[in-house]
């Protein structure tokens, strides 16, 4: 088992190295970031000074070794656009993204799983058709549209909910007293963006739950349980649900990472200060260190999640670790 874990860990590190190397190369293909900062008509000396400050006057291999060296020290570099260390900006934004992502995740589960189950249990009935309709709406109505509709109804017309930002609570890493209040305050600010983001994913969740449940309900062991005369309620709750949720939870885990890291449109519409906007700003402004930093952190989360899943699979199923 130890050898298996070490091997998986090594693969994860290689994946991360490949990721940062590819990102390092790709952002440099987007063009010259100095032109962004310099404005039209800026004199050459001024542009040279910026280039020097940003280390872009160095050969690319030197920039790359410097970048990897700094990464090993936990330094993601300085944002070109926001003029501060990327690490500071990223970790200031990360709690906001986690809060939005988790809330949207809960909404997507709360809508998708029960309706998916209902749809599967009442297959080819009115309930099933309604479930399919909800799934279709979830998948076909983009988050920005739902967000704007929510803003108009609950923000502008009814005046019930604020439409901008995350509220006044802040998560300060160095101050543990702020941690708990951050999660439990300013829910009115969270309600609309979390629903708009969770709504889209709830459609996919509903479909997966439905098809997983249908597969399980049609399996031999469920037939056997029914033949034994177990009440239908118990068949569903005790035997079918647990097994049908395995693919749902795997999918949900990936969805959560997407919701945390790339909720760009929702963040823009609700002015939510998350990491998605950082990535968008970074890409728009050729802010190489910011793009590298945000992609690296997103990649790190995905690699870590996969590593944990791989290790757990190896732990619960010896055939997997022995086959490697």
């Amino acid at each position: 088992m130890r050898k298996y874990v070490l091997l998986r860990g090594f693969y994860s590190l290689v994946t991360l190295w490949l990721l940062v190397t590819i990102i390092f190369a790709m952002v440099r293909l987007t063009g010259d970031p100095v032109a962004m900062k310099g404005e039209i008509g800026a004199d050459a000396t001024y542009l040279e000074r910026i280039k020097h400050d940003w280390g872009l006057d160095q050969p690319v291999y030197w920039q790359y070794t410097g970048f990897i060296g700094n990464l090993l020290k936990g330094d993601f570099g300085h944002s070109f656009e926001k003029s501060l260390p990327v690490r500071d900006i990223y970790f200031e934004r990360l709690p906001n993204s986690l809060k939005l992502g988790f809330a949207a995740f809960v909404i997507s589960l709360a809508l998708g799983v029960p309706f998916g189950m209902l749809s599967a249990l009442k297959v080819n009935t009115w309930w099933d058709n309604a479930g399919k309709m909800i799934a279709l709406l979830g998948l076909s109505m983009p988050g920005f549209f739902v967000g704007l509709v929510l803003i108009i109804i609950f923000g502008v017309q009814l005046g019930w909910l604020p439409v901008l930002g995350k509220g006044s609570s802040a998560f300060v890493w160095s101050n543990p007293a702020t941690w708990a209040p951050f999660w439990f305050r300013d829910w009115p600010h969270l309600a609309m963006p979390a629903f708009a983001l969770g709504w889209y994913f709830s459609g996919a969740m509903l479909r997966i739950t439905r098809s997983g449940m249908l597969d399980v309900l049609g399996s031999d062991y469920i037939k056997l349980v029914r033949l034994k005369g177990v009440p239908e309620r118990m068949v569903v709750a005790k035997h079918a649900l647990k097994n049908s949720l395995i693919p749902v939870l795997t999918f949900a885990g990936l969805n959560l990472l997407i919701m945390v890291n790339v909720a760009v449109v929702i963040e823009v519409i609700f002015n939510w200060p998350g990491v998605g906007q950082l990535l968008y700003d970074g890409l728009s402004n050729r802010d190489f260190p910011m793009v590298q930093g945000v992609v690296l952190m997103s990649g790190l989360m995905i690699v870590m999640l996969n590593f944990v899943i791989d290790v757990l699979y190896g732990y619960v199923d010896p055939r997997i670790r022995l086959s490697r």
Partner: protein
Amino acid sequence: MTRRTGIKELLALIAALALVAAAGEAAAQKGGQTPILSGPLVKLDIKEAQIETAKGKPKGTFRIAQHFALDPGWLDPLEHIFALTMQTYDYLVHDALIKPMPQGEATYSLAEHAELAADFRRAAFRLRPGLKFHDGQPLSTADVKWTYENYKGAHAKLFRDKLEHIQIVDDRTIVFHFKEPFLEFMDLYNGAVSGIGWIVPKHYYEKVGRDGFKAKPIGAGPYKFVSQQAGVQMDFEAWEEYWRRTPAAKTIVVKGIRDNAARLAGLQTGELDLAFGMTGKVLPQVMADKNLRWVPNFTSVWHLAFPGYNEPDSPFHDKRVRQAVSLAINREFLVRQETQGVGKVWGNWISPENRDALKGDGKDLPLPEHNIAKAKQVLAQTKFPNGFEFEWFVPFVPYFDMGERILTDLRAVGIRGKLQSLEGPAFRAKMGQGRKGFPGNRTIVQNIDPRPGGAKATIGVYAVCGSPASIVCEPQIEELWTKHEASKNLDERDRLNKAIQKILVEEYYMVPIYWNPFVHAIGPRVLPEGKGIERYYDTLHAPYPWPWEVWEVRADR
């Protein structure tokens, strides 16, 4: 005009001039302004600051929405970029020796007196007595000198190359000595054009360093920096010891909100009090909302340019083709479509807010004509009697609808092209490369540039061969520009500058469209009620309504 009326007017003018001269002398004596420099001086047009002492306590939170992400780098004048946006933060946290104010394009601020030697080799300033930074430390000429010497932003090389040495006469008096005549010094040192005149506290900057300063700056401006979430929000608090007046609003919160609809919703729900960039599709909604007010806030002039026009195989090489383009554009329609009729059709491509710009309202340059028949007629005399296809029409981002409309107008005379939609930064990067930014020579660019520093600054960027962003490169203009740069006579420079503007428009190198309103929308919490808010927009050359200390809002509930 009758002869008697003419004499009357002449006498009135002489009387007025005498009064102005007397008032100027009296003001100088009243301020006790003993001369700093010896020898003849240039007569400077710097207005007196309006000091308001009888103001009450600051009250209320004033919430402003910027239309893009906020850059903490904007808080550091030492790294001042060219963009005017940065001055929003200069005017909040910092203060300059002279800066644009409602009183004039150059108005005394930290300095109470300035002199410029007639040979343009020395400039001197006297600071107001008792100036302080937000931490209570005195602001002295040592800070002014340190700021100049450590400045790295826009025009830094020019300032460094020209400087011989800086002489600190005393804590309040400073003299800059230049190696050679520095004619533009007062224009460039003005807070409108560069960051070098916005004074940074030497003791604090040296203590916290560059990043520390951007993260938590202090200055001598009306508002103290409180906190920021990089890119998203900055909070400022009134500094009651500001020398000019007590700021009216207790707190100012600036948010970076890119989405127009979100800014509008923020105003409608009362989460915002002022939103920038409300032109285009949201403008009708702003106008229709009874709770909102709006200010046209005219900035600069939309215009077309033709990168690569001077290559013989370009269709735009022929002046008549460029003229046909101009004749084909229905400017009145564009003004209605884009600005609900608020914009003004204009005959110069440079903002009339520049004191050295020719007026494009028919006074100096004629209003451009919309005449399809004439456009076709002009085109018929060229190599393209039935029109032609050009490659790209590149609109300023995100004014794609406007670009589409212009393309439709051009199609009506047989000039056909495709729209190239770029991202904002990509457009800026291309424009920054000038002609080189646009491959081929069959492209039309739609641009606007509310650049401070006078018409000459805009010409120097786009219409001079040596500029990195040059689009127009003409021997005739180059000759005039060389003379302009060599001249030590301000009147002659002005004449040459205007001659260049005339050529650029009359030869259709630049095709002006309309003077653009960069509409700001204002919520009901801002005082005074009704049209009184227009007084906040009196500062010339300000796409944003500086200074901030005058903005009043209702007290928070």
